[in-house]
Every structure is written in C-alpha cells, then in structure tokens.
C-alpha cells in the first residue's frame, strides 16, 4: 500500500516550547494510524498542521506524493482531509440536519443534505434522528453528528482527536466498528489517543511521540499496553493502589434524597441521590459526561444557590444553606473540572490564585488587607511539595501546562488540611507523569484520614484509586459498588442506566 500522507522534517515551536522537532513519518492509505503520546508530546500540534490550523516553521507535507501547502482548514478539506475535534462545535438549539448544513462548503438544499446524511447513517449504523435538536442528544450521538458532518465532505483522510474520551465502553466499541467499516470503504483514519489498549485494539500502525519528537512508528501487531506505555513515557509508571478491605466506620459526609426540579431544558435534574462517605474513604462517581455531574458539583459547591430538595450533612451538620465560603471554612475543599477560569484565574499570578481559594483563612489577612508575605510562602510550599514546574509564584496561572497547574491547584487545597476533598475530573487532559503523581497523592491523603469524592469520566482512574464507585446516569446515582467486586461489564451496564 502506498503512503497517503508523508510528514517530512516538520518543525514547529512556540515561545519556550518546541512542539514538533523534526517530525517525519508516513501514513499508509486505507489504514488506521494512531498517534500516541502524553499531553504536550506534540500530537495535537502535528495534526493541526495537517489540518491547516497551524503553519509549520519548516518542513513539508506530501499528500499522495505531491507537495501540499495547507494554509487553512478549507484547503485541507479540498485535499480531502477532515477532522473531528475533541470538543464539539455544535449549536445546541439547532437540529442535527441544521448543524450538518452549517458545516457544508458547497451549496446544497436541506432535503438533499438529509437524503445524503441518511444514506451515510444507514450505511455505517449511526443512530441519529436528523430532526431532533442537539440539546436532546447524548454525548455519543453528538460525536456521531460531528463524524457524519465530516463524512459529508467525502474525505480521504479523517483525523480524530481523542474521540473516546467522552464515551461509554459500549459506545466505544460501536465507534470502533464504524471506523473499521469506513476504512474498508477506502478512508484513512488518523487517531489520536493516549489510551494504550484502545490503540492496540483499533489501529494498524502507531507513531509514538515524546517531547515533540517521534520515538518510533511501528505496527501494533506485536505490542501490548505495557510495552507501548514504556515507549510512550520512556519510563515505567507505578500504579497508585490503596489497601483493600479496610473497614471504614466514622461517617463524615451524607447526601440524603437529593433532587432538583429545574425547568431549564439544558440542565439535568438530579433524582433522589443518596451518598454515604466515611472517614478516609475515596468515593468515585462515574458516568458519561452530561448525566448530572455538573449539577451535582454545583450543589456541592453551592455557587449559585441552586434549588434542591433533600439534605446534605457534613459531620452531622446540615450544610444545605451554607455558602461556598462557609463550607470551605468547615474544611471542605473543592477542585472543579475547569481549571482556567474556575478553580484558577489564568490572568492572575500563582500567589493570587492561592488567595482565590484560601480567602476564608484569617492567617492570610490583616483586617481588610491581604497578607501577601504569608500567601507567597504558602505558594512556594505548594510549588515545592507538589513538584510544580515553574520559576516562581509570580508566574501567571495561564502560563502553566495543564498538568502543572492541576498539581498546583490540588496542592493548594491539600495544604490547607481539608477533611473532605471533592475533585471533578482531577486528571483530565494532563500528562501521564502528573496524572500518576496526583493519583498517588490522593491515595496517600486518604490514608491520612481525609475523605475524598472524585467525579470522573475516566473509569480507569476511578478503578485505580477509589474504594467505592457509584454511577451517575440521567441524574440518578446507582448503589455503590466495592471496587474489589467490580467487573467492567457490570460497570458498562450501570453506565447505560441499567441499575435500580
């Protein structure tokens, strides 16, 4: 088979970062080619160059052995290159068909487009109603819309950026079937991922990238997750593992019969949620994004005086009506899903970001004035203890990489000695080194008696660190499962809503 894409000596740097250094490899026609690497390894930069989003500093791309100058995504589309992004760009209030027509370069009538889309859906088994609004679709279906939108342009090459990160195990296997059928019909798929098993299951070839350079391009046939992981990282990652079969006794945090009745069609109503958390326990809340995680987190944080029925107890104290500030003063700490703009302000320095979350602590204040000296020393402690890679606490938070910032934020909360730590997506989109560090820290923290709730879409993460896991599905929380008794089939069923 001949090469459809050839990268030749691609270089791309940003101030302070060499994102791609001398990247050269070929992608064979009609193959599934994975690009594997940690966050920050340069895989997104590379595909953005291929898709015309970024210009390389030097280097060439050959498409079908012809030199291609790809200045923009529309040039890329003309060359038959399409991309499905990790974050969807769909209009929630428009229907599927309306969203599809917005992505078309050519003029086409809505009826014609519907016919064409229907053919694609039927052929490959996308389960989509073209007339339903996006807001009524599950995340998996929304992804289908994105894929169909790309297929409408008759692509030769389809780039998919971390397509499985938002899907249930069931949806993933469906997606893989579709991808394999597409390849049979002549498509070449470039698949970006950092999940090792997936790459082995799905792809024919894999290019491993580390620190902007290609480590190697190999066939996946003789690889297993461990060998591939070692090639990706250059070192072995030890798994964080807690002791099993501990008898937890002291109750610390309780949610009783929590329900919401919002009329907003874009929110999920929570339905009779019960949760019991004991001292030193790590409790995972699994589930596909958009099943009420955001709403639950909002109630736990009490940011917007969200209306709900039911009760929340912290150490036998009803905290229903306590503000964020009061809850923090009770030594409940939070790390939200969004780092920039929620649990940290990108335009402010690390020191200021310490005070952002610690402004309830009197030691950082002198009356109405801020005690910057104390804050700075707290910040340097966090930086030191949690291996945050930054020259100083005066650096703006937005300048840190995702992994570093997350270490800083989690460190900030842990250093304040919380009794309850609530984390949402703690390792989402960060490098494997930071991820392992954070998981290890969480487990150690629980051993010191801190109770932890983790809301996450990442099942592997939850299975690795949690004692108990419940699944959130359309606002209902399943009964808790002990991690020791969990098998992936059962969890998959729960994530599809099959629990009582």
């Amino acid at each position, binding site marked *: 088979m001949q090469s459809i894409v050839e990268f030749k000596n691609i270089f791309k740097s940003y101030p302070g970062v060499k994102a791609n250094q001398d990247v050269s490899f070929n992608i064979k026609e009609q193959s599934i080619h994975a690009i594997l690497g940690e966050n920050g390894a340069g895989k997104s930069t590379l595909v953005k160059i291929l898709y015309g989003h970024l210009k390389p500093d030097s280097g060439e791309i050959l498409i079908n052995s012809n030199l291609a100058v790809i200045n923009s995504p529309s040039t890329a589309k003309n060359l038959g290159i399409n991309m499905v992004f990790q974050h969807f760009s769909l209009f929630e209030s428009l229907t599927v068909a309306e969203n599809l027509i917005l992505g078309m370069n050519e003029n086409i009538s809505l009826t014609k487009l519907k016919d064409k889309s229907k053919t694609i859906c039927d052929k490959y088994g996308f389960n989509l109603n073209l007339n339903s609004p996006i807001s009524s679709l599950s995340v998996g279906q929304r992804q289908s819309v994105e894929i169909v939108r790309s297929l409408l342009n008759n692509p030769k090459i389809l780039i998919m950026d971390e397509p499985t990160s938002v899907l249930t195990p069931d949806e993933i296997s469906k997606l893989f079937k579709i991808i394999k059928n597409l390849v049979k019909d002549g498509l070449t798929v470039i698949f970006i991922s950092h999940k090792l098993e997936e790459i082995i299951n799905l792809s024919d070839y894999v290019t491993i990238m580390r620190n902007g350079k290609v480590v190697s391009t190999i066939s996946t046939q003789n690889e297993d997750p461990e060998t591939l992981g070692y090639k990706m990282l250059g070192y072995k990652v030890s798994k964080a593992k807690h002791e099993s079969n501990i008898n937890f006794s002291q109750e610390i945090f309780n949610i009783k019969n929590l329900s919401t009745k919002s009329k907003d069609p874009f929110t999920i109503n929570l339905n009779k949620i019960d949760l019991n958390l004991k001292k030193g326990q790590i409790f995972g809340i699994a589930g596909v994004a958009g099943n009420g995680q955001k709403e639950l987190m909002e109630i736990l944080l009490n*940011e917007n005086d969200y209306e709900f029925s039911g009760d929340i107890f912290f150490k036998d104290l009803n905290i229903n009506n306590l503000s964020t500030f009061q809850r923090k003063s009770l030594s409940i700490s939070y790390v939200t899903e969004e780092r920039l703009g*929620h649990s940290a302000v990108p335009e402010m320095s690390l020191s200021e970001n310490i005070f*952002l979350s610690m402004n309830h602590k009197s030691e950082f204040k002198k009356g109405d004035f801020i005690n910057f000296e104390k804050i700075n020393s707290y910040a340097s402690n966090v930086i030191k203890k949690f291996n945050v890679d930054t020259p100083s606490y005066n650096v703006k938070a937005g300048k840190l990489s995702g992994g570093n910032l997350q270490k800083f934020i989690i460190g900030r909360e842990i250093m304040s000695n919380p009794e309850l730590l609530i984390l949402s997506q703690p390792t989402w989109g960060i490098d494997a080194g930071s991820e392992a560090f954070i998981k290890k820290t969480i487990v150690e923290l629980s051993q010191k008696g801190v109770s932890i709730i983790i809301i996450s879409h990442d099942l592997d993460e939850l299975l690795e660190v949690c004692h108990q896991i419940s699944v959130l599905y359309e606002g209902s929380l399943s009964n808790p499962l002990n991690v020791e008794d969990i098998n992936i089939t059962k969890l998959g069923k729960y994530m599809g809503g099959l629990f009582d």
Partner: protein
Amino acid sequence: MVYLIRVQLREDYSNLIFYLSPLVAVALTLFFGSFIFLILDLSPIESFKIFFISPISNSYGISELFVKATPLAIIALGLSYCFKNNIYNIGAEGQLTMGAIFGGGIGLLFNDSTSVFLLPLMILFGAIGGAFWATIPAILKTKFNTNEILTSLMLTYVALFILDYFVVGPWKDPAGYGLPKSMPFPDTGRLPVLFDGLRVHIGVYFAIIICFITYIVYNKTLFGFKLKVSGLSSKASQYAGFKYKNLIFYTFIISGACAGLAGLFEVSGPIGLLYRDISPNYGFTAIIVAFLGRLNPFGIILSSLLIALTYLGAEDAQLFLKIPSAVGFVFQGLVLFFLLGTDFLNKYRVFIK
C-alpha cells in the same frame, strides 16, 4: 468566491500594547483630527496650537485645566470600581446631578449659616445623593436582573428633570429676575480655592487622595482582590465564595458617591449656586477618561488632564478659530473610537479571506 472579513481571537495578546494603546489612540486622534481642520480650511498646526497649547500657556489656563480635570478624575476613579467589576454604570451624569441637588440643597437650607461645618455637611450629602441615585440601578440589577446600562442612563434624565423642577420651582431665587437658578450658597458653603484669583479649588486634593486610596484598595485589600477576580472570571469569583450581588452594590455606591462628590464640588466651587446646566457632560466624558486611563488610578489622573484639555481647547477654538466648541466632543469621541479600535486589534486578529 466570497470575501469575508474574519476575526480571530489572539491566543496571547500583549500586555505592553494594552498600556501603550492610549498613546496610539491619542496619536491617531491628532492625525485624523488634523483632517478636520483641513476640511474647515484651517492650518492644522496653528489650530492644534490654539487647541492644545495656548489654553495652558498661562497660570489661569493651568488652573482651568485642573478645574475641569478634577470632576473628570473623581468620577472616573469611582467608575473604575464598576468597570473593573464588569458593571457598566453609564449614569454618572445623573449621580453627579443628584449629588449637586442633595449637597446644594443643604447649602440652600442653611443659607444663613456661618458654621464651618456647613461645607463638610454639604460634601457628605453630595456623596450620599450620588450614592443614593446609584443604588437604584444596583437594586434593579440584583433583584430583577435589569440591564444596568439602560437603567443608569435613563435615571440620568430623571435626575436632570428633578434639578430642573427645583430651580424653576421651590428653590428659585426670588431675587433672580425669574431666571431658573437658586440663590447663591453662603460663603461658608463655598469650596476654598487654592490660589487667590484662580478657580482651582481643594477638589484637586480630593482627587489625589481618592487616587491613592483607590491604588491601595486595588492592590492591597481583599475588596480590591474581589473586584479583580469578578472582573476576570465570574465563575472563579463564585468558586472563591465571593458574593457577586454585594459587589454590585458596593461598586455602584462607590462610583455614585464619587460622582455625587464631583457634582457638589462643581456647584459649591466654580458655580456657587444651583442652575440647569451644572455639568458639561462630565459624567459621560468620565467614562472615556476611565478607559483611556486603563482603569488604573494614576492612568486616570493623566487621562483626566488630557481630556480636560479638549474642553479648554474647544472653548479657545470657538473664540479664535470661529468653529463650534462641539469640536471638543468630536476629539473626545475620536479618542474613544481609536482606543476601542486598538484594544480590539490587540485582542483579535482581523484578516480578509
């Protein structure tokens, strides 16, 4: 092929350019302003001399510059609290008017007073009047989620009509030949001037003090921190446990009090009584001053002097060049236009495709 103008957010826009852009805006204003003079058949260089240099070439002129800059600076400093918090209080003119009514009312009520406490009381009531008028949009915003831009602007006209009512009605000077103005305030109700024979008054000190206090509040205090966080990200502000509704109230009250103070200074300083046109749009122009000064207290002092110069220049231009004094507003408008333009181009990349 359709050519479209495309706008793209710059991922890393420059802080340096953010602080330099007021200078760029002023330079562009002068450049394009010279065309206005050319169209009017005037020599741009001569005109600029009359507009920007001759007004401040003597001590009287410099005194007048500070007379105009004082209210602009005080109002703009107050407005910066709102703007930093992403609250758009457009009604400073009304708050200024209400401050003049409240504080001036005290002066008229005790018009035979010889007490040294009269002026401080008037100043206090001036601030209270402005703050009172500013709490109305704050209540409407926090209770009913009303757009504060509209309510504060509309309340400006209400305040102007209230002043109108008083000066043609109950507070009309019986010895004023029927003119719509009040009696003059007693001497104890007049703002002391800094130099004999010049109009520059102790309001200048207030402006400087407010500037320093604002600097400290913004950089050293919890309240300043809250404003900064809320202005940058409302979600982070909630995460930090700050009550946004309270911040809306505080910032409105502060900016209203500052505008009220400026209004009282106008009537008890240069004017000496209440009448219809106590302010040449200081409350609106101060919005330009605040943004031109980049919401930085010291920047606001500088920009208030520059904008004050456009007021003086316009008066001189009317006298010596025989052109309408509205040219001053044209210059103010141009500065704002170019400032918004440079900010936009700094934040976004624009290209045609």
